[in-house]
């Protein structure tokens, strides 16, 4: 199996995206600073313009950016965070919740069409379950505390006031900052635990063509150990967004150990929040499918075992493979 090659490819892909995203944001203030040029020799106007553009002077007070008189980007950052980020981020999250509720009301949970056989087969190893639940628990705590930092003032502020928010978020910040590296470690373990099951298989094209059988009645599409929906969550959600959010979060952590400029921190906060909102949105779908959406899905991750009927109805190719004495892995 080209396992190493795949992993290396995934890492290069992710790094490339992070770097290009950062470059995109870094380019914005540079263009904003190119104001109208002064008439030559107007030195006084020149230095005031430099002050406005954040050109550093000299200060006896030491520390990051102590020589910068004005950082005009702060107000832009405030507008971006309090404006589009909160507005569209909130809308995307609420819309996803609404879609899931609507889907549940219209289609209901996916139940087995035949009675369970009572014969169990192993779907997840204890290590896989440990890594999954480790990631899941840290992810939920990170998600809740992160949402509280972005939306807490708007949603909870009127109820518990500034003092209540302060108490709640003092704890929330500790949890968020200390669990972040733990989440990153679990995410990396999770990627390696499930990497070889999430490679492309021929049956995936049929799954895509029929949209996973989501809108057809009773149309089951045979799939391997994981279907294409699960693979999308693995690559786009866990691997790309998970590493992106955890990576930007790690760079935001440890404020006093490394001196970073305000511009970098502003960009990182925005990228981190955008990534986190998208990851949370995707996670709603995964959590729905893993709990109430699919009968028996939660049991499989709790016990590691599934009924043969479940295996045949949800992952037929994997079931056939396992019954034939093979690993069931692609």
């Amino acid at each position, binding site marked *: 199996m080209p396992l190493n090659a795949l992993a290396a490819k995934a890492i290069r892909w992710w790094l490339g995206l992070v770097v290009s995203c950062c470059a995109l944001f870094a380019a914005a203030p540079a263009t904003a600073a190119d104001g109208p040029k002064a008439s030559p020799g107007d030195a006084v106007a020149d230095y005031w313009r430099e002050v406005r553009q954040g050109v550093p002077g000299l200060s006896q007070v030491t520390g990051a950016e102590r020589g910068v*008189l004005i950082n005009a980007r702060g107000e832009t950052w405030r507008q971006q965070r309090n404006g589009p980020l909160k507005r569209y981020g909130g809308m995307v999250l609420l819309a996803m919740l609404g879609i899931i509720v609507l889907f549940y009301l219209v289609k209901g949970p996916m139940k087995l069409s035949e009675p369970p056989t009572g014969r169990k087969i192993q779907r997840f190893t204890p290590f896989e379950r440990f890594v999954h639940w480790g990631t899941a628990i840290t992810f939920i705590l990170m998600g809740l505390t992160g949402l509280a930092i972005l939306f807490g003032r708007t949603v909870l502020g009127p109820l518990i006031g*500034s003092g209540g928010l302060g108490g709640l978020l003092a704890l929330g910040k500790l949890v968020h900052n200390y669990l972040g590296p733990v989440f990153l470690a679990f995410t990396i373990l999770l990627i390696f635990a499930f990497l070889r099951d999430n490679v492309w298989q021929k049956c995936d094209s049929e799954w895509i063509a029929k949209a996973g059988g989501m809108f057809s009645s009773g149309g089951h599409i045979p799939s391997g150990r994981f279907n294409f929906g699960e693979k999308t969550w693995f690559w786009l959600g866990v691997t790309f967004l998970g590493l992106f959010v955890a990576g930007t979060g790690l760079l935001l952590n440890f404020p006093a150990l490394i001196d970073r400029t305000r511009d970098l921190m502003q960009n990182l*906060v925005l990228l981190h929040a955008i990534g986190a909102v998208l990851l949370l949105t995707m996670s709603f779908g995964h959590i729905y499918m893993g709990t109430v959406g699919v009968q028996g899905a939660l049991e499989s991750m709790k016990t590691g075992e599934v009924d043969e009927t479940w295996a045949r109805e949800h992952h037929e190719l994997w079931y056939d493979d396992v019954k034939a004495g093979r690993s069931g892995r692609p």
Partner: protein
Amino acid sequence: MARMKFLCDAERCIECNACVTACKNEHEVQWGVNRRRVVTINDGEPTEKSLSVACMHCTDAPCSAVCPVDCFYTTEDGVVLHNKDACIGCGYCLFACPFGAPQFPQDGAFGERGKMDKCTFCGGGPEEDNSPAERAKYGRNRLAEGKLPLCAEMCSTKALLAGDANEVADIFRERVVARGSNRGAWGQNLQFNPLGSGKG
């Protein structure tokens, strides 16, 4: 009711840093934190200018707008203060502030940020005026004693002015008349002022 303002006259500031020292001493500010700093632009060149800068007590303060716990408030005098009991030390106020005013003591493991500290316009905090609790968290409350900020009070060249905006403007206006130009004030764009362009 007064509207408090700082104004630093770049024509007068001699970069003595006494405002920085006086502030730190008056409020017994934490180790590693300076509420005020002096910045020199074009150091060593003919156009060298120095300015003393701290919290400018914005009317629409970005720090207050981005605070996740809403711990900022503006007094009747237009002074922007904050409640250290609610502050969680996230640093967002520093990211948003144009002047780099909010400062954080290094507090706890892994260089974690402590509770934010910044210039209070010598106006203390939410606690009872000049109570020991207020004194410990925010320093002395000179406004409650009927006094103005110490940095400006003791400025030897009177470059740094602090007080009611109208009073400060009147003093600076006299200087403008005497100089024949308005050069020196914060953000004056002398490109549009023939009197001030590069002369004197």
